[in-house]
Each structure stands twice: as C-alpha cells, then as structure tokens.
C-alpha cells in the first residue's frame, strides 16, 4: 500500500490565476495519475505522469492548461492554469500498486473553487 499526501486540501481562487497541487508518496512509484472529479460526477483521468518523461494527457486535456511535473519517483505536481469557474472540481492524485500495478491508491484530493 501507499500513503499519499496531497496539498492543499482545498482552495478558493480567483479567475485567471493558477494553482499548483502537490502530491507526495511515501514510497517510490513508477506511474502517477491525476484525476478530476467535477461536482456530482465521476472521475476523469487528466494525465499519466512517469518520472523522467513528459506526462501523457487524455483527450480534452492539454499541457498548457494542466502542466505536470514529475521530478522524482515520490513526487508530482499538477498546475491548473488560468482558472475559470468551470475548473472548480476535486483533483485527485493516485498511484498504481499491485502485482500488475493494477490497483490504485488515491490521495485525499484537492477541492478547488474558482470564483
């Protein structure tokens, strides 16, 4: 298993600003994932972040809007840039474990509200 610390836990931001969310894992992991959970909806994968390479983004998400850093095997950041109210969501960091790296563990999430 893994302990995943995510911060901030919540923030209220002004339109047009940017917020960087940090995710720290207590063990080394190859793959980290960033998900978004919009109000009342399911989780949507934003991107997959591997250490030492650029993040791979899902359809509908672009690097300019959601730049990701993965400087080492225990840490990653997601930045939500030039925010608008539509970006108000919970953002979740997760890592894969298990025999085939098939099981995900999640951080507690960052609840973002954009005014």
């Amino acid at each position: 298993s893994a302990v995943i610390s995510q911060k901030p836990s919540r923030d209220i931001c002004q339109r047009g600003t940017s917020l960087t969310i940090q995710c720290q894992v207590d063990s080394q992991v190859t793959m980290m994932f960033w998900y978004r959970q919009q109000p009342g909806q399911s989780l949507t994968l934003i991107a997959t972040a591997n250490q030492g390479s650029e993040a791979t983004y899902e359809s509908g998400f672009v690097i300019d809007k959601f730049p990701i850093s993965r400087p080492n095997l225990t840490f990653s950041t997601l930045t939500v840039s030039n925010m608008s109210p539509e970006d108000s969501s919970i953002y979740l960091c997760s890592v894969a474990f298990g025999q085939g790296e098939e099981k995900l563990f999640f951080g507690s999430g960052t609840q973002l509200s954009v005014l």
Partner: protein
Amino acid sequence: AQSVAQPEDQVNVAEGNPLTVKCTYSVSGNPYLFWYVQYPNRGLQFLLKYITGDNLVKGSYGFEAEFNKSQTSFHLKKPSALVSDSALYFCAVNRRRAGRRALTFGSGTRLQVQP
C-alpha cells in the same frame, strides 16, 4: 472503447438488510474490475478487485462482489448493511493502452443506509 455503467444514482437500504450496488462493464479482452468507496471529503479507497479466478471476491468492510462474464456485471454486495456504509461507490475497469495503466470509472452510486 472500455466503459462502466452504474445504473442507479442512489440506493437506499435499511440497516441490517442486504445491499446490492450494480455495475456492468464493456471491455475488449479480460477485464480487471474494481470497486472503490468515497467517504465525504476524502479520497477514494480501494474495496476489492477481480483479476482472475473465483468469480466471488471478498473485500474490505465485509463487502463482496460477483463477476458474471455472461452478463458482463460486477455487482457489489453486503449481507447486512451498516449506517457507516453510507458513501459514494464507484465501479471501475482497468484498461491498458500504450503501456499505461489507468482506470475508467463508472458514474458512481450513492448508498444511503437508514437506521
């Protein structure tokens, strides 16, 4: 494309009664299936998974799920519900694409257990 359907937005059950939360999936090849639970203001927690083997899998907190290949279902069950089981439940399927491993989540089912 892989997908997961949770046909019920909400399930209400009285404490002590059995509960079922439904999930059906669509995926090419053999599925890896998961259930996660989300308590208020917290990240997702892994409940159980089906990879291969026995169709009935047991997980955390007394939950179990039955894999039914012919019906492409993976319903979550518990013989006797507790008020503390009230939470948001997500079914998910693992997909592999270009070496990445990420989950596709259902829309979620809110379980409300009444005392």
